């Protein structure tokens, strides 16, 4: 199983072959509070790293979710439409948002590894 990588905007990406499965981090779901709606991209959408690709709404506010890598959206987690609370329950597993067929798998190397991200988050509070 490959390593999970993290962005400064609190997305995570785990690369399996050339497909990156992506979501928002546990820190992000906690900060957002009860998640009540997730707007997912269309399959086939071409995205660039850092580009807005989804929206997550909590009872408090709407937040943008950015693509952790360049590529094409090849799958979305339809379970989130009926059960957006899955993101609160399991942000970094069952609460995944979308899968991107990465244009350049090495791009995840520019993202943070887990200890670096945890340190980064500590610095935010």
């Amino acid at each position, binding site marked *: 199983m490959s390593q999970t990588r993290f962005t400064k905007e609190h997305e995570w990406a785990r690369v399996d072959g050339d497909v990156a499965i992506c979501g928002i981090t546990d820190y992000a779901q906690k900060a957002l*509070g009860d998640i009540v709606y997730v*707007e997912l991209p269309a399959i086939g959408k071409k995205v660039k790293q850092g580009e807005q690709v989804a*929206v997550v*709404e909590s*009872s*408090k506010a*709407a937040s943008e979710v950015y693509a952790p890598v360049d590529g094409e959206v090849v799958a979305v987690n339809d379970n989130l439409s009926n059960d957006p609370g899955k993101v609160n329950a399991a942000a970094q597993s069952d609460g995944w948002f979308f899968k991107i067929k990465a244009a350049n798998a090495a791009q995840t190397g520019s993202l943070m590894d887990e200890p670096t991200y945890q340190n980064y988050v500590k610095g935010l509070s």
Partner: protein
Amino acid sequence: MDAHMTELKRTQLYNLHVSLQGKIVPFAGYEMPVQYAAGILKEHLHTRANAGLFDISHMGQVVLEGGADILKQIEKIMPGDFQELKPGEIRYSFLLNEQGGVMDDLMVTRPLHADEQNSVFIIINAACKDDDFAHMKKQLPHIKATMLNDRALLALQGPKAAEVLGRFCAAPTKLKFMQADKFTIKDVGLCYISRSGYTGEDGFEISVPNATVEKFASDLLAQAEVMPIGLGARDSLRLEAGLCLYGHELDTMTTPVEGNLVWAIGKRRRSEGGFIGAATIQQQLKDGVSRKRVGIRPDGRALAREQTEVVDSAGKHIGIITSGGFGPSVDGPVCMGYVESTFAKVGTSVFLVVRGKPLPAKVVTLPFAPHRYMKG
């Protein structure tokens, strides 16, 4: 950092909020809990199923004292039919400006007992406190106005509220919706209790002496049915109940006629007038208004929040959302807003522009969640 930044005030329950892991935010000049450990969703649903305790001590509690004609006097500054109000009853009303715009919405209680009939008790919004107080003093110079700064205010709301309060004092559970009286609760002192609230549920608002409120709130929270509820769930509960929030549905540029609150203007008052703003209100009652407050329910699950534009099928601007969010009991998005009167009929299709896209929605009957008041 602005050195002149106004210092935020705290209610008597600040320490209790912090000890309950309340997430503290600035609200109307106070440091208030937006949610506790459970979170907005659970707090909301708990209130509808059990009982929720809210600290609403930031709101203003005002006593106006005059002569035997006090009810007639206050009709100068409010459009309610206060002379018809019975002892021990409450009216929802407004302070209006000369243009008929709403300066504040408030609750007025006529005391029950014979020896209190020269006074009324009023609860006003926190953000409007100082302006309201100055306005009342100016417009009613012969009336003595007192802000009760020695009292805190709690709301106990939900289907289990009466059962819980009854354990501390049985008498107030005999009150019906929109009735009030004074009760002495053991170890708490003299409380002003009304059967009212801001959730659409049965419940009480309880004015408690500052000195004992922390102990009383803790004792209420120790009851198995009671959970502390923050401002986040207070907002989603009142939105589902179709109740206006000052500064959102109501402001100085909006009249009660536009706000679809004509029911709160007494019948006699509509024809007689005699209150500040009456000319505009009577004109609007006669000629109609160009925009009206409505409930709007998006067809999909995307939320439409405050300031979302409302358009017709051709994309023409027809209104604006004033409150919008997720309704936990409805299990979907709910909104209130103002639309051009021709679009205000229940069932009308409208579109809400969310992130640049027009999402289909419908004008619906308010409330979204049925009121469950304890009526007589």
